[in-house]
């Protein structure tokens, strides 16, 4: 199972939590006041962030308030696979928020949702400062980093820490009146989000979106190469200060005391020597994180691209043959079905 934090405005949250539907926007207002759909790169980043979601995954909502401190609400669960639908739900003059998923209160913690259980976002940031949460470093949108509304977090200790705070503060922050939950059903007009993954081979976010989908579905074309994945995240900060991000981090539970982390870097076309340098550097940085047990955990690297420099292949094969400091996987992808899918093959 996975775990997500989704950002939403206070205005839209009132509608969402009653109807059990969340939507991500498809465009923005330009400098001249006109509504413009996002360019493909941004569109695929939205799909990439959402498409790894599946029924039963946990969801928290980061509610952006203009009148007071922002809050995190939860805990909810996803009702079905994400989809695209343009039926008007929220009160916005331009935006339909068509990249959507349905949710409901978590059945084990429904009273938290029924009475609006929440924490202030500063308490969440304290968890990050205390290194109790590692899979996120901020919920803010930063300069030079793409705006993101949906972030996948670790479905283990990180999720439990947020749940702990929601329970800790429930008594003092709960509403007195029960919230009415009237979930809307999945419309027959809704299109599965998977159908919108196209242009594979042309956009990095497109191949990343496909990978996120395949991992969420335990698709054998990926699982046969990476192994059975227990959790996975995209765009994960490797280090807080440098703001460097791993494209995809997948986690396998080897046994009760041992995990295998695979740090993947995805390139649209060719993986060159700088890509290998990058993934090797990230592996070394990741091993120094407190969550990694350097004596029992394994940290592997992975490069995914359509082609590879000869030097990258040569060094990777020799390094893997020595079996020291974790392996590097080189995965070649070939777009198929008019760019809506891809074949994957491990070449080293």
């Amino acid at each position: 199972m996975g775990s997500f934090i989704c950002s939403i405005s206070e205005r839209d949250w009132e509608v969402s939590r009653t109807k059990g539907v969340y939507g991500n926007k498809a465009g923005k207002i330009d400098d001249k006041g006109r509504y413009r759909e996002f360019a493909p790169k941004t569109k695929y980043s939205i799909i990439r962030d959402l498409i790894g979601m599946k029924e039963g995954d946990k969801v928290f909502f980061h509610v952006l308030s203009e009148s007071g401190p922002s809050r995190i609400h939860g805990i909810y669960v996803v009702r079905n696979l994400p989809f695209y639908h343009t039926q008007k739900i929220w009160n916005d003059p331009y935006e339909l928020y068509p990249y959507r998923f349905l949710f409901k209160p978590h059945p084990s913690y429904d009273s938290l949702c029924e009475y609006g259980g929440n924490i202030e976002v500063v308490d969440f940031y304290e968890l990050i400062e205390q290194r109790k949460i590692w899979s996120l470093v901020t919920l803010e949108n930063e300069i030079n980093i793409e705006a993101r509304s949906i972030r996948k977090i670790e479905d283990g200790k990180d999720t439990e820490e947020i749940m702990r705070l929601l329970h800790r503060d429930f008594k003092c922050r709960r509403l007195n009146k029960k919230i009415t939950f009237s979930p809307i059903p999945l419309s027959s007009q809704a299109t599965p989000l998977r159908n919108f993954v196209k242009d594979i081979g042309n956009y990095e976010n497109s191949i990343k979106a496909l990978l996120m989908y395949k991992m969420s579905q335990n698709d054998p074309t990926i699982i046969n190469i990476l192994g059975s994945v227990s959790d996975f995240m995209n765009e994960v900060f490797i280090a807080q200060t440098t703001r460097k991000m791993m494209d995809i981090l997948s986690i396998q539970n080897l046994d009760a005391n041992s995990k295998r982390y695979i740090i993947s870097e995805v390139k649209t076309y060719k993986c060159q020597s700088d890509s290998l340098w990058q993934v090797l550097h990230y592996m070394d940085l990741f091993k120094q994180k407190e969550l990694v047990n350097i004596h029992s955990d394994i940290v592997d690297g992975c490069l995914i691209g359509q082609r590879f420099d000869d030097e990258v292949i040569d060094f990777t094969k020799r390094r893997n043959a020595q079996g020291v400091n974790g392996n590097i996987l080189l995965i070649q992808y070939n777009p198929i079905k008019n760019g809506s899918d891809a074949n994957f093959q491990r070449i080293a």
Partner: protein
Amino acid sequence: MTPTQDLYNSLCKDLYSLDIFDKSLNGLLSIIEKNDRHRTILIEKKFAVSSSGERTAGFFFVQCLNSFCNEEQLKEFRKNLEKVVKERAKGNYMEVDPILIAPGYSDIVINFVNQYNNFQRRKPILCRYGK
């Protein structure tokens, strides 16, 4: 006694006896661990701090091979290096300078070390010829 055993013994007696270390460049050095069987030496780099005497500034990990270095010996050296990095530097390879001394190296090893030094943001492996 093989040539590199001689080197190993010389280093153990006096770290500055060979041209590997230089007092002015490397600061205060002291051997904190050695293994006569594998001919490995772990050296601590220190610098003077007025308030508390001396502080650690990292390590040198030296291995003196007594035979030509091929891929198998390189693999063992990297395994030993990894062990030191885990135990002494919490996995941070920038804390440990690796030095390999051997009478000679195969082309494959030289090529691999060059690639390793280019690709890994770590302290480079320094290969020295023991004469």
